[in-house]
């Protein structure tokens, strides 16, 4: 047997649970789930060593579809829960997942500070530029001129730029992936998990129900022409000037990763004493 084929303890299917996704047929989130399970198989992480944490929305259903530990939390608070989990249980690989509405709108403030804290976790955002679960309202990443029944003529509001915000806020790894390239996305997710600190992967994941025109994304995406950089200023220039369909790792830095202080400041008995009546 050569280096092309090897026996392995875990295959991608081992990370998929018996709960079947109920996303719309054609939704990009199916292949993101596949990419996540492939990434975990590449890293040969045991399912019990991984926790998948989410908020609310179509994509936030993802923890139930894996055999890893899962936490389906409240709207916009996935990063808060994931950060707490990682700090309390640093031996776990923590993956936080959700959508653009959950992560950039109600969860926007958590996003900024999760980047800034640089705790060693991976944040996957399945971005379809729309609130799908609640029937197609404009989200923070929706184009200002997206004409629809709920916002005739478009909202006229400038789109949020998550990759630049992540970089400026302190994320240590910034990448863009595309659900239509599940193997490429799996490789990017695996790199994100391996990279120390807060790793942010923006995954373009079409909503075929409310944004059917996003099926054309597969014609627009292209691999990043330039290799990843560890220079944040250079990465910022590239991200600010690209066309939004540049796929690959765009920044892999060496910013200091948050580390929990090892000394215990109080025992459980001490705390009970504090609250004794």
């Amino acid at each position: 047997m050569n280096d092309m084929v090897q026996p392995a303890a875990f295959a991608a299917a081992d990370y998929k649970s018996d709960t079947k996704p109920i996303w719309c047929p054609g939704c990009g989130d199916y292949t993101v789930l596949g990419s996540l399970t492939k990434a975990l198989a590449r890293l040969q992480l045991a399912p019990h060593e991984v926790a998948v944490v989410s908020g609310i929305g179509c994509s936030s259903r993802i923890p139930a579809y894996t055999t890893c530990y899962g936490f389906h939390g409240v709207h916009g608070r996935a990063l808060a829960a994931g950060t707490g989990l990682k700090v309390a249980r640093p031996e776990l690989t923590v993956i936080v997942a959700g959508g653009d509405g959950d992560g950039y709108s109600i969860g926007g403030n958590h996003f900024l500070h999760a980047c800034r804290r640089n705790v060693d976790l991976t944040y996957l955002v399945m971005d379809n530029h729309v609130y799908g679960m609640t029937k197609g309202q404009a989200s923070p990443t929706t184009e200002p001129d997206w004409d629809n029944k709920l916002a005739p003529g478009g909202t006229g509001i400038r789109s949020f730029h998550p990759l630049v915000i992540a970089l400026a806020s302190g994320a240590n790894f910034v990448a863009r992936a595309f659900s239509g390239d599940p193997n490429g996305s799996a490789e990017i997710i695996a790199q994100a998990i391996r990279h120390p600190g807060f790793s942010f992967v923006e995954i373009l994941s079409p909503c075929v129900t409310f944004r059917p025109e996003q099926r054309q994304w597969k014609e627009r995406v292209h691999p990043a022409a330039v290799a990843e950089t560890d220079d944040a200023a250079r990465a910022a220039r590239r991200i600010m000037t690209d066309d939004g369909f540049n796929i690959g790792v765009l920044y892999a830095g060496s910013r200091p990763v948050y580390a929990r202080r090892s000394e215990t400041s109080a025992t459980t008995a001490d705390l009970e004493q504090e609250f004794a009546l």
Partner: protein
Amino acid sequence: MTAATAPQTIEDLMGQALQMEREAVARYTELAEMMEAHNNLEVAALFRQMAEYEGHHVAQILADMGWAEDTVTLREPGAWASPEAPESVPIDEMHYLMHPWHALQLALAAEQRAANFFDALARTGTSDGIRRAAEEMRAEELEHVALVQAWLAKVPKPAADWALDPDPPRYVD
């Protein structure tokens, strides 16, 4: 496929073939589950059957190569020209009201892509052994193409308004 990712040995070639067939099984299974979740049971059954066919290919490759069931392939990025393995049906082609005719059209295209993949290797493989093995794989894929074509001949083409749903599960208020 680039020169760097072209198979250099029979094991490389069969490793790629194994991965392609496994991805096809996984995708057809995924599509079947997708359709079951949306109560399109006829199309779901069709995708299950396609998964079974591809599963036979997986078993055959493992048996021919003497590989254990837990063998995994470490595909080099760029082994296929497309982002996905040639035999995988694209997810975004799905629709909850699709008919067996649509599903078979997608399956036919996938089988044809797989045949083309091996056809290219049969012509440009780096050794006689690889070219012969690729030719055998191409012939097997063409058998699948013929099978799907025969199936398709028995399935009526849906009316133009097949996607019209007077009571859609999701619509903008």
